[in-house]
């Protein structure tokens, strides 16, 4: 066990950016002892290990992982993301718990990982065109075609085995973050503080990265300090726009409901709700497709901004609770319920997996039992 705990402890300390002597002092042991522990030469006292877990903000189970390298969640190396470190840790814990639940319930690897549509900068000379093609191909693969809006993207991707976690992060400019590992597959973190329209776009954007830029997921840290790669970000935006609002579907909806009359704010509201996107994005798509000239697009955007209660809110919010529907019926929760109600996990294990304390975990199980009894 010391050969496992030691290196895991060192990795966690390195990721936290703590020098060995500083960390040893915080733990109340000598540097030589910490060095011997990290090198797997001596067993650690479990009390010290718990103190280390507290200091590093990691669940204790992190230190018992046999193959941290194979399981590590990888991020794109060139991104401009500053997700708080506690959110990143929670995200990684969620992805790991998801995998464990799949294994405990016996459904691990029952879902195929979504395919990679690898983008090679030196081969694909038109990145935007490539992103449009991938959006169309992926819609076909998922059986949603080109003529209808996606009913609920949270549900759709969840059913494909994409691990989606929504966390409240104070900085609204952190829209989302994605990670990938061969063990976990695609994983997406969304900022739950943002509007549902923003979350929908961010989910599609990150999904685009995971489909097109999988070979770029090589870093254990999301922020590598490299400059933001505009091409990749632009491609993910184009993917999201075309995945959520395909050209064909928008032209059909436009023809059917607007025709030759000038586009008004009511049309924008109708279309944004129909496609479940933001008003800004709807105006941009209408302009991209030549259904709206530049001047009309500008004046509509001005009108949208004037009507917006504040910059963080959306005009004419979606009327259906897509996010709530998905939260009520998502795969992770189902696996956790099944594991608990079929006695596949202990209370302590459930608490570990869900990141709850034991009282909260007990209450959760009680709710599930009541729900099943009432069904």
């Amino acid at each position: 066990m010391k050969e496992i705990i030691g290196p895991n402890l060192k990795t966690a300390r390195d990721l936290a950016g703590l020098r060995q002597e500083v960390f040893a002092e915080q733990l109340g042991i000598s540097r030589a002892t910490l060095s011997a522990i990290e090198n797997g030469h001596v067993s650690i006292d479990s009390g010290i290990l718990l103190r280390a877990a507290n200091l590093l903000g990691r669940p204790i189970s992190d230190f018992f992982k046999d193959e941290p390298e194979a399981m590590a969640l990888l991020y794109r190396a060139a991104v401009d993301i500053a997700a708080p470190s506690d959110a990143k840790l929670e995200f990684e814990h969620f992805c790991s718990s998801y995998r464990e639940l799949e294994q405990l319930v016996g459904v691990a690897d029952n879902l195929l990982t979504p395919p990679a549509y690898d983008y090679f900068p030196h081969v694909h000379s038109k990145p935007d065109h490539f992103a449009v093609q991938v959006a169309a191909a992926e819609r076909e693969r998922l059986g949603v075609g080109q003529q209808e809006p996606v009913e609920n993207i949270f549900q759709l991707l969840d059913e494909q085995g994409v691990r989606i976690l929504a966390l409240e992060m104070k900085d609204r400019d952190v829209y989302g973050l994605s990670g990938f590992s061969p063990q976990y597959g695609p994983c997406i973190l969304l900022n739950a503080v943002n509007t549902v329209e923003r979350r929908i776009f961010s989910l599609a954007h990150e999904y685009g990265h995971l489909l097109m830029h999988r070979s770029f997921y090589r870093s254990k840290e999301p922020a590598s300090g490299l400059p933001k790669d505009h091409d990749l970000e632009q491609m993910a935006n184009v993917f999201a726009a075309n995945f959520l609002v395909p050209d064909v579907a928008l032209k059909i909806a436009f023809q059917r409901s607007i025709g030759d009359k000038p586009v008004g704010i009511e049309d924008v509201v109708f279309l944004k709700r129909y496609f479940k996107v933001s008003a800004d994005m709807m105006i941009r798509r209408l302009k991209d497709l030549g259904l709206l000239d530049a001047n009309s697009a500008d004046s509509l955007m001005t009108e949208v901004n004037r009507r917006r209660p504040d910059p963080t809110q959306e005009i004419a919010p979606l009327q259906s609770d897509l996010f709530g529907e998905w939260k009520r019926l998502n795969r992770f929760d189902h696996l956790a319920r099944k594991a608990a109600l079929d006695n596949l996990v202990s209370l302590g294990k459930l608490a570990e997996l869900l990141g709850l304390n034991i009282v909260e975990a007990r209450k959760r199980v009680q709710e599930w039992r009541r729900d099943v009894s009432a069904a």
Partner: protein
Amino acid sequence: MSPQHKLRAGGVSLDSNIILDLYLTASLGLLNDLFAERMLVSDFVLRELTQAAIRLPGAETVNLTTDEEWGFFRETRRRHPGLGVGEVGAITVARFRHATLITNDMQARQTAEELEIPVSGSIGVLECAVELAVISGQEAINLLQAMVREGAWISDELLELFRQKVLTQGD
């Protein structure tokens, strides 16, 4: 003369589940009444309790230190992935301190039996309390029913068997 209850002597290693049952029914004091000086709690269990703001005075905290203890801990976790760190800690403490594991968790109980570690649960604790006249049979029944209301998973059949047993014991 009927034999003494097995929990009347020797160390006991408690897991969070059982402590939670007693905490949620405001009867944690029962543990000290019954097991003073012989109550063992793995530091992994203690951490779970602390995270839930539950205090358990009077228990000896036991850390894992030796290669042998860690080896056993690792092997138990590997063979029983449905158990949490706290339950495996409690089992390890029971094994190395030759104590009885007290847990209501089905997985933990099965694991202990497989490892030939003596095991008991809330019902055993209450039976012992009645035998020692710490509480009456009726109080024990009320307490067990309260535990069920607070989420303890005890079947109606087991409840009924317990009711019959402690009421007879009280006669």
